[in-house]
């Protein structure tokens, strides 16, 4: 049955009579894709423009007339790309506006600093040769004329942030910056009026330029992550079959569902909402919600939760208000508590700023007092104090951390890790204990066939191709084995039993053991393998049993070993049954594991670990992990996790491998080391510069050289965060402390 998705909710009517739609495109990997996509849709009638943004992988479409937007999606699908309607989230638009604003400020500061430097160099060289006082005054006034409006405009990001911090009774890095800039500017104007030889206009605008560079880089890093996250969210945007008054299903975006709506959930579909089953009976897999891998029997009146997978039968579900969803409600409440606890974490940069600001101001004040005490005029004393302020103004300091963050997050990006929060790197670097969830984290989120080797290859291939015709979730595991992706013609699906097709005169069946007449074989297999689901296939007289279960991620054992080799204590905390967790823990060599943990148990366990003084990284994907993710010092979840869980995680990793976790820890440790090195460099710079400024040797020329020199130094040092670094020797013995056995089960 050809179903069309109603995309009208995403189409925007524009003033000039055209309609606009943004699509997030999956599968773009080369330059040729740009023209392929743009010219691929260009023949559609009424299309005004189609423009692909290669950076964000989004296609903007404008068309005239009454074209059903679904034709674009179909056309792109024909070209081999998956397209999904995309709606910009408010946060992303806000970030984009801020990035533009910072870029404007950066441009103004750049313009001003170049022009003023031109004037300043003339004055510096004139001062040692033959510049006339009139010309010098003229240049100084000109510099003032450029820098005053430029600073007023380009300094806004710092002024606003400083005022905001002061209003809340805090200080941050922007407070000393603002005070330094304003004082230096003020003194320079006074000096200009007094026909002095030196002014600091050039230092001020250069300082502003460097600082804005740091700010913009910081912003760009967060925007890139957010873009990818938003795309992924819309790629996974879910749809539901809503039943209208006559009981006819229509495909609508899940976001359009309201309480009391009736929704049809077919076998193999994910349940899109929390609700009550009105009719139908089925088994649902709630592993994403609770971590439990055994399907749950469900009939009329039972409650279902968003994210569960419907296995065997069609269900009609009445949507309940989200606020009444018992499980979601509970999870939400726990989440809020945990999140508020985490916001108390202070960033390294803020900590430094808090210590730094008073020291700088004290140093400047002491300078002024000592100069006055030694008989200097108030004018000279204040001027020297200003020199101290400018030279200590944390230019290198403000660049030290963002540049490392940008470079390191770029390196993480290449390792398939996306950071959600800027301070995640620092917290990740200090982790000493990693707690893994089992289902979907250590294991792959999708099912796969466990006993491939025991099945004749041609029978397996036949079963896999036959599985293409089935909607059953267990069939999806078999589909992964198919090399030939064309379904058999004339395959018939018997609901609740299996699929059959006649190929080359022989009937092939795939489905429940009874359907394939293989119950005797199944009985033997189930006796051996407790945690797997069983499907059977038969061709003529050949019969085989396929064991389907969630397999470990291919590199899990290797990664866990490496993690332990680098001194991290690895643990498992799962909501699944002990019988399902034990073999996984054994395979990975993890002794500290716990099964059957409910969300509250997970939180309690994490709190206990934290109380022991450990810094805990939680890796999990299920809805039941979300509160635990928020409780942990830092959290990572796979991209297959539920929305709520991902929103809570500090970082997200892509792909089937567990290696990104190892990379994340390695890169963040190196980045943290570089941040501290950079801060040390900035400190050493100050140790030399402050005494010079104190003694009054810092002319604007010296200030300019010192500032650009130290900024370049920390930036170059930060670039070292990019390299992959040397891996720990894999064959090395595992020198971890003996893992503590934890309570098993509840």
């Amino acid at each position, binding site marked *: 049955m050809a179903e069309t998705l109603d995309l009208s909710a995403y189409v925007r009517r524009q003033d000039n009579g055209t309609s606009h739609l943004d699509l997030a495109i999956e599968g773009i990997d080369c330059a040729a894709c*740009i*023209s392929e996509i743009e*010219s691929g849709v260009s023949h559609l009638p009424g299309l005004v423009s189609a423009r692909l*943004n290669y*950076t*964000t992988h989004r296609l903007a479409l404008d068309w005239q007339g009454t074209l059903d937007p679904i034709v674009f999606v179909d056309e792109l699908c024909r070209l081999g790309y998956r397209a999904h309607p995309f709606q910009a989230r408010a946060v992303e638009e806000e970030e984009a506006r801020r990035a533009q604003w910072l*870029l404007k400020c950066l*441009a103004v500061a750049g313009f001003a600093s170049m022009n003023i430097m031109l004037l300043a160099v003339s004055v510096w060289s004139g001062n040692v040769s033959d510049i006339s006082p009139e010309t010098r005054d003229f240049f100084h006034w*000109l510099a003032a004329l450029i820098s005053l409006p430029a600073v007023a405009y380009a300094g806004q990001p710092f002024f606003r942030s400083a005022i905001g911090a002061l209003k809340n009774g805090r200080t941050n890095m922007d407070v000393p910056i603002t005070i330094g800039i304003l004082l230096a500017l003020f003194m320079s104007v006074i000096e200009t009026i007094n026909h002095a030889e030196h002014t600091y206009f050039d230092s001020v605008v250069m300082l502003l330029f460097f600082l804005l560079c740091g700010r913009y880089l910081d912003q760009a890093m967060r925007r890139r992550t957010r873009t990818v996250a938003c795309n992924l969210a819309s790629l996974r945007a879910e749809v539901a079959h809503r039943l209208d008054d006559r009981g006819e299903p229509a495909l609508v975006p899940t976001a359009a569902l309201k309480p009391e709506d009736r929704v049809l959930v077919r076998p193999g579909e994910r349940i899109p909402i929390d609700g009550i089953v009105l009719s139908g009976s089925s088994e649902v897999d709630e592993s994403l919600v609770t971590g439990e891998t055994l399907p749950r029997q469900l009939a009329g009146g039972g409650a279902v939760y968003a994210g569960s997978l419907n296995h065997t039968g069609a269900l009609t579900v009445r949507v309940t208000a989200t606020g009444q969803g018992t499980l979601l409600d509970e999870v939400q409440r726990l989440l809020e508590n945990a999140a508020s606890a985490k916001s108390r974490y202070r960033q390294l940069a803020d900590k430094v700023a808090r210590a730094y600001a008073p020291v700088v101001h004290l140093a400047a004040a002491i300078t002024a007092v000592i100069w006055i005490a030694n008989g200097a005029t108030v004018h000279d004393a204040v001027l020297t104090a200003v020199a101290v302020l400018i030279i200590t103004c944390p230019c290198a300091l403000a660049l030290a951390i963002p540049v490392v963050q940008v470079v390191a997050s770029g390196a993480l990006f290449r390792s398939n890790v996306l950071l959600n929060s800027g301070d995640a790197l620092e917290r990740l670097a200090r982790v000493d204990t990693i707690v893994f969830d089992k289902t979907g984290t250590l294991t792959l989120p999708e099912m796969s066939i466990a006993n491939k080797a025991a099945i004749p290859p041609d029978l397996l291939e036949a079963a896999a191709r036959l599985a293409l015709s089935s909607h059953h979730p267990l069939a999806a595991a078999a589909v992964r084995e198919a090399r030939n992706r064309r379904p058999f013609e004339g395959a018939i699906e018997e609901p609740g039993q299996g699929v059959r097709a006649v190929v080359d005169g022989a009937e092939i069946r795939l489905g429940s053991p009874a359907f394939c007449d293989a119950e005797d074989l199944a009985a033997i297999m189930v006796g051996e393998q407790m945690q797997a689901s069983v499907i059977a296939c038969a061709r003529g007289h050949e019969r085989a049993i396929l064991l389907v279960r969630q397999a470990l991620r291919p590199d899990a054992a290797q990664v866990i070993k490496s993690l332990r080799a680098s001194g991290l204590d690895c643990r498992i905390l799962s909501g699944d049954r002990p019988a399902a967790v034990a073999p996984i823990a054994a395979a990975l060599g993890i002794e500290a594991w716990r099964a059957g943990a409910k969300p509250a148990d997970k939180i309690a366990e994490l709190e206990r670990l934290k109380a022991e003084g450990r810094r805990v990284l939680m890796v999990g994907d299920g809805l039941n992990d979300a509160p635990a993710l928020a409780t942990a010092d830092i959290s990572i979840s796979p991209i297959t996790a539920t929305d709520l869980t991902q929103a809570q995680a500090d970082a997200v990793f892509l792909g089937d491998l567990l290696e990104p976790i190892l990379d994340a820890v390695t890169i963040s440790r190196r980045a943290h080391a570089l941040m501290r090195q950079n801060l040390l460099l900035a400190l050493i710079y100050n140790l030399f510069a402050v005494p010079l400024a104190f003694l009054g040797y810092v002319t604007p020329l010296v200030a300019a050289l010192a500032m650009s020199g130290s900024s370049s130094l920390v930036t170059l040092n930060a670039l070292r965060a990019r390299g992959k670094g040397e891996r720990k020797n894999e064959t090395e013995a595992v020198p971890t402390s003996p893992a503590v056995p934890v309570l098993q089960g509840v």
Partner: protein
Amino acid sequence: MNVLLFLIPLALLLGLTGLGAFLWSLRNGQYEDVQGAALRVLNDDDLEP
């Protein structure tokens, strides 16, 4: 020093032109797809064969 009266406004004007051009390109959306722009230049579908 009369030449300064001519050169300095000229220097400022050039700088302002650069700034103006940058702000225009920013508003024009030329920084929205930096990677795409680098690749589009390689596309020669617009040339007659």
